[in-house]
């Protein structure tokens, strides 16, 4: 009998026909249904439980209900009250009840029936079970990633796509590892290198480039909710950028990820902590901070500690801890006690609430130079420092800061469902950090490799990268996820444990990563979301990449690494119209010189008014931990990519560079197209550009005043020897190329 696997994924159902008969598996098939449709009233939370009946434990499910029948009778759906109620057409009886606005599909009901008939076996939630290194499926594949993926594809009767062309491949891996496109010279060299291992040599070159750390850091900044202002009312300037540079360096040096986590959570508590280890703890203070007059100290200090819990929960455990701030989690076995027990690690610092204070950093802070520019200026960076005595912690009734429940004191410990603290570790942030990276935490390695997977394949193996709890998605490739997690945590062969670089290399050298991205109708019919990866997923470039790519192709990009944030072009008035009178970031003063052309991760991030080009292209506002960006497609993006002064300036500079090349026009067009897209243009496309160019040249020759006006973009000087009409026409062609789908998309 055929059986349809249903995976609840963000409300969408992915239906994939399994080819062999198998009973439903609880974690994969049953729990998502119960969790989505039943647990709200019949789950962990006793306050919300209806009819005193719970389905989240076998004991609860098998209890006799009011009707004197077992809720679930293992082995017999027809004798189960729950099943009778599911089938009922009486609106008073049917489950889920009509007012819940939830319904079970026929396929979901069938899964439940088969599961009950098979004995209704329960399993512990998959992500709470420690990962084991699974056997790699036997195959001729050199890379285990390919072996896992190919085995699954084979079961579905599908095959991987052929390898992408060299141009596509080089642009793909260069953008993914550095956030920048390859240069024409790099492209030529790769195409010319026909020796074995050419691709692997490129990967090594890119991993050794300082640009790699910048790319990895720019994603970490979203997760770490990094900003250059405090947010809230006054949105005061802060100077946390040496921490940003610490992150870049950590990635470039391939700091072991366990150390990376420990230092950011508790670097200050390490024995003989270095200033840079203290600096790392700025991670814990990247949250918003208010200095609004009249604010209540306790309320906000509570808020900051809660933010740390939420961030640590999402980033290192994939758990939505915030849900249990006010009540026990409705879906996950996380209790309100768990939230406040974690919070107890973060509430005993020497920080003070301040009012009407516009310092660049509130104590505790250190004064330190950027680790990337040790000779450069020092800045004050807010860091963690433990108070002399731990502040007693209690559960807060309904999460209210002023309603501690004195009858419910909490001690510092990880969430109960994940086990006890390490026996020999200190009962402080350092102990928590050591527990997080220990084998006792089943989640850190999984959550981290999943985010890395998402970076390269656009969607995680668990699509809900921020939620590995019961409402999160069941992994589409569970064995692969665990294999990657163990490979990451333990290393293998020459690879050291916790080496991000090793894991990244493992991914990008796989055949699955190197395959063509052309969509295949026979695949999308079976696997509409391409979760099985029978072809490579195209993605729109991230905001930073769109801008940086233009700077790079125009030859304008500054390669300077690290340092204080910069202020590139921005439409006038944006800060002024939103800022509070007491703010010291209400006037935007544009940078001069090279600072206009720095990579986008160095752009000043004002939280109440982030750089518009970045947010239009889906950068989050960095007010809270964010581990997944959307890739929307809106008309505002078209307007920005057409008319932002920076992109117009890049268009003109690229045009000027091309015009200075002695080749004839058709070849110059091919060069322009290639510099931007990384491709040798198709004849038809180059013809379209040439025809357009000819019309535009004619148009600007007859109206040189318009040409002169058009060329006034940005601060970069223009070669006066160039003919303005010709340059204007070329500039619009370059702008067109910057807006092509193949430019905005990494394929």
């Amino acid at each position, binding site marked *: 009998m055929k059986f349809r696997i249903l995976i609840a994924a963000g409300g969408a159902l992915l239906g994939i026909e399994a080819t062999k008969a198998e009973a439903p598996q609880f974690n994969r098939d049953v729990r998502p249904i119960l969790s989505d449709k039943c647990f709200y009233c019949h789950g962990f939370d006793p306050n919300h439980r209806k009819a005193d009946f719970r389905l989240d434990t076998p004991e609860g499910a098998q209890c006799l209900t009011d009707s004197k029948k077992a809720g679930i009778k293992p082995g017999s759906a027809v004798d189960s009250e729950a099943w009778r109620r599911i089938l009922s057409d009486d609106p008073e009886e049917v489950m889920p009840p009509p007012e819940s606005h939830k319904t079970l599909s026929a396929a979901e009901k069938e899964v439940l029936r088969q599961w009950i008939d098979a004995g209704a076996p329960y399993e512990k939630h998959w992500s709470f079970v420690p990962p084991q290194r699974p056997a790699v499926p036997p195959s001729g594949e050199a890379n285990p990633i390919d072996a896992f993926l190919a085995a699954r594809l084979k079961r579905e009767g599908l095959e991987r796509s052929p390898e992408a062309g060299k141009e596509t491949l080089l642009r793909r891996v260069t953008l993914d590892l550095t956030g920048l496109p390859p240069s024409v010279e790099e492209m030529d060299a790769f195409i010319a290198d026909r020796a074995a291992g050419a691709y692997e040599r490129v990967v090594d070159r890119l991993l050794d480039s300082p640009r790699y750390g910048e790319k990895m850091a720019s994603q970490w900044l979203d997760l770490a909710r990094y900003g250059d202002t405090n947010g809230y009312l006054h949105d005061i300037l802060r100077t946390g950028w040496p921490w940003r540079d610490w992150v870049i360096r950590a990635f470039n040096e391939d700091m072991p990820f366990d150390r990376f986590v420990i230092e950011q959570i508790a670097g200050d508590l390490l024995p003989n902590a270095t200033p840079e280890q203290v600096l790392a703890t700025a991670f814990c203070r990247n949250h918003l901070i208010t200095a609004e007059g009249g604010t209540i100290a306790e309320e906000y200090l509570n808020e900051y500690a809660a933010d740390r819990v939420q961030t640590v929960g999402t980033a290192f455990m994939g758990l939505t801890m915030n849900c249990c701030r006010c009540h026990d989690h409705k879906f996950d076995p996380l209790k309100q006690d768990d939230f406040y027990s974690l919070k107890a690690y973060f509430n005993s610092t020497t920080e003070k609430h301040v009012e009407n204070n516009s310092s660049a950093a509130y104590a505790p802070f250190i004064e330190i130079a950027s680790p990337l520019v040790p000779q450069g200026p020092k800045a004050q960076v807010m860091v963690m420092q433990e108070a002399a005595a731990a502040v007693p912690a209690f559960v807060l009734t309904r999460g209210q800061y002023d309603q501690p429940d004195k009858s419910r004191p909490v001690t510092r410990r990880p969430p109960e469902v994940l086990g006890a603290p390490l026996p020999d570790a200190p009962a402080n942030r350092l102990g928590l950090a050591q527990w997080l990276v220990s084998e006792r935490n089943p989640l850190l390695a999984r959550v981290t490799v999943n985010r890395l997977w998402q970076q390269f394949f656009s969607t995680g193996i668990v699509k809900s990268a921020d939620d590995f709890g019961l409402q999160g998605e069941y992994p589409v490739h569970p064995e692969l996820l665990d294999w990657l997690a163990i490979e990451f945590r333990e290393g293998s062969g020459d690879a050291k444990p916790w080496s991000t670089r090793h894991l990244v290399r493992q991914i990008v050298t796989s055949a699955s990563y190197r395959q063509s991205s052309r969509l295949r109708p026979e695949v999308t019919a079976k696997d509409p979301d391409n979760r099985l990866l029978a072809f490579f997923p195209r993605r729109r470039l991230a905001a930073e990449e769109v801008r940086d790519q233009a700077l790079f192709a125009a030859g304008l990009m500054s390669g300077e690494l690290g340092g204080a944030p910069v202020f590139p072009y921005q439409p*006038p008035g944006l800060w002024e119209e*939103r800022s509070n009178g007491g703010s010291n970031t209400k006037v935007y003063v544009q940078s001069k010189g090279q600072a206009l052309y720095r990579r986008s991760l160095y752009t000043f991030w004002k939280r109440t008014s982030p750089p518009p080009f970045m*947010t239009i292209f889906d950068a989050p506002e960095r007010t809270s931990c964010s581990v997944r960006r959307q*890739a*929307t497609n809106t008309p505002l993006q078209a307007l920005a990519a057409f008319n932002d002064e920076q992109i117009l300036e890049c268009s003109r500079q690229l045009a000027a560079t091309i015009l200075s090349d002695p080749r004839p026009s058709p070849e110059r067009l091919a060069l322009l197209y290639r510099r931007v897209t990384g491709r040798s243009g198709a004849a038809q496309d180059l013809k379209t550009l040439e025809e357009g160019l000819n019309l535009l040249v004619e148009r600007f020759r007859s109206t040189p005043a318009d040409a002169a006006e058009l060329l006034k973009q940005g601060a970069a000087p223009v070669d006066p020897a160039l003919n303005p009409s010709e340059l204007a026409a070329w500039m*619009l062609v370059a702008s067109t190329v910057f807006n092509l789908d193949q430019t905005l998309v990494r394929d």
Partner: protein
Amino acid sequence: MNHSSDHPLFHVNRRQLLKGIGAGGLSLLGSTALSQLLAAETNPAAAFPNFAAKAKRVIYLFQEGAPSQLDTFDYKPGLKDFFDKDLPESVRGQQRLTGMTSGQTRLPVAPSIFKFEQHANRQDGLWVSELMQHTGQMAGEICMVKSMTTEQINHGPGITFMQTGNQIPGRPSMGAWMSYGLGSENQNLPTFVVMISQGRGQMQALFSHLWGAGFLPGEHQGVQFRAAADPVLFLNDPKGMLRSDRRKMLDMLGEMNRREAERSADPQVLARIAQYEMAYRMQASVPELTDLRGERESTLALYGPDVKKPGTYAYNCLMARRMAERGVRFIQLYHRGWDHHGSVVKDLPLQCQDVDQAQAGLLQDLRQRGLLDDTLVVWGGEFGRTVYCQGNLTPTQYGRDHHPRCFSMWLAGGGIQKGISYGATDDFSYNVIADPTTVHDLHATMLHCMGIDHTRLTFKSQGLDQKLTGVEPAKVIKEILA
């Protein structure tokens, strides 16, 4: 980073694409891609409205900084006898105070210095301060809710709570929810538009997350129309470029992108073509929207003398009407400067002068065009102000601190009863004594007017079916529905 067909974003694109194909004269690449495009249609907008909507759009006149209800709409004549007497402990109860007045040794009562007049409505009349006399004259259209309460006492969280249903920044704004649920009625303008005007008093920061999409797909975020030459960021082509140049570029782009669509077989490429064409249409529709030459002088006069100055509340009210006519779903105004801690007497009259005639004019203008019947207009701030004085109290000088326990808001138009008051506060305008109305109740009621059951407008995020009205129970205020 998701190009797969389940991305909710994609669905609106798909609809826009089909329209865009008509308008832009694009040829389809092939039936396979198109059918793929259509097959994935699961737009939530298909599920709404849940019942007949009384209102098709919202104009939300947000008064940022918290207007004093005591000096505008919550008439307490008995307070005259309490001038400079201490607020009775029995009234204050265990109320928490902000840090600005918690240190004061006394909390002396400051009656309003302003005269109130009674304006006819469908009940026994509405008392309105002389500062809001134009608005008072619209009493027959307005439903005054005097029993609003909030949980927040500071501006940042208070405004965020009012706009997103949660005090922590980062949730979707109400307009984003409506865009997500109901979609667009105009393919040439954004679904959710935001306009800001500066007031006279102390200004609070406005965060772009107030009109953000939160966890909803980013296309639902509000688009700020600015009081600048570029009302929409990056709308204007650079100087020296003609409309025909832009068309030429779009034609080149379209040709090359269609070839790319064939090469990649990815329907997202078609969606991108459609979005570029929409951007081109917006470059025409937005200037048309802001071109006031067709407005009659008699219409402009309704809004008062500032109506032609971009960036004023009056101008934004007029723009709100023009957007309502053109089918913008959610029109959000922010008027800043209501935070009168220091001198209510000096600052409030000027602040009211900036809004009073303009908002009354907007109601009249909407009514005479028949738009008020299906446009929901909402007016109010993030909380109220205290009856007791902040700072020095004299017969001609007082200030008021933040007050979350009660404040007044008014609603008018589609779905709302005309000419009534709802709820009541005690003699000190300190506590609600009848029909307390929470922020979530207000949101539930607004959604109801738009035909949406607030318990069904959900989006799964962080493992929960998130909604605008949060987890605590919220109710639609049936008593004020038409």
